[in-house]
């Protein structure tokens, strides 16, 4: 009962924020909308029993990464997109209906595919998503990929430094 209401609220919020992300011309507004999507998704993760992921979503994603985005926006002093007249009209007139139609098709497919398979989502039906369980899985079954991600992040840091540093002539 509770789950249904929460899903309805946050799903609507996520979609609304997503639409806002796409429609806004200013990157800062888009970034804030994205944070909104992420926050909504974090609640949905909780509903799905993924506590750890919900936390990480808020802390790392909405917190750290999006702050990085905002920094960059600020750093570059990015303004609004310029409007290019004419061209966008065609894509809106044809592209949007097609896009909506396509989404409808996908939704229909999913609906027909998943009516029979699987039970409906119940809050507390699955409790294997706490930090303990996830941590155990990460350090046993997924140990190697987990360690590799650390290397990946190291490389990413190095790459970012190399790319972003000032040219030394």
């Amino acid at each position, binding site marked *: *009962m509770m*789950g*249904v209401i929460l*899903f309805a609220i946050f799903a609507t919020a*996520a*979609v609304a924020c*997503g639409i806002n*992300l*796409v429609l806004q011309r200013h*990157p800062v507004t*888009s970034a804030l909308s994205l944070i909104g*999507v992420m926050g909504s*998704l974090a609640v*949905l993760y909780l509903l*799905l029993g*993924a506590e750890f*992921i919900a936390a*990480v*979503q808020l802390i790392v994603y909405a917190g750290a*990464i999006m702050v*990085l*985005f905002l920094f*960059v*926006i600020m*750093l*570059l002093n*990015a303004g609004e*997109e310029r409007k290019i007249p004419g061209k*966008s009209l065609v*894509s809106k007139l044809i*592209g949007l209906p097609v*896009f909506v139609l*396509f*989404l409808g098709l*996908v*939704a229909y497919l*999913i*609906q027909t595919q998943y*009516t029979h*398979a699987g*039970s*409906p*989502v*119940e809050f507390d*039906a*699955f409790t*294997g*998503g706490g930090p303990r369980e*996830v941590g155990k*899985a990460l350090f046993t079954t*997924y140990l190697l990929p987990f360690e590799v*991600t650390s290397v*990946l*992040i190291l*490389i*990413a840091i190095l790459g*970012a*430094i190399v*790319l*972003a540093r000032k040219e030394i002539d």
Partner: protein
Amino acid sequence: MDFTLPPLPIAAIPMSAYLILSAILFGLGICGFLFRRNLITVFMSIELMLNAVNLSFVAFSHQMKQADGQIYSFFVMVVAAAEAAVGLAIILTVFKNRETLEVDEVDNLKL
């Protein structure tokens, strides 16, 4: 807190609702990627798509009653973090070299 809510048309949220939500968010990400010309917004659209995928992972994890899907979404987040770091660095470099964030003006990737 003794009040009763009117009965909802459905008792529980079906799996498909999560998946459709994921699809919609993914589609919005695509739209953003295609329609926005600001490099940073484009990049954020990619993040949106990643999030949409993560939602599917977690939903399936719930359905399978296994944490593995969550682990995947965890890795996706890690990769997204790394990607964001490098990607934003690239955007910085591009801006430094070209003084623009317009996607359409960065079209040197051709013969």
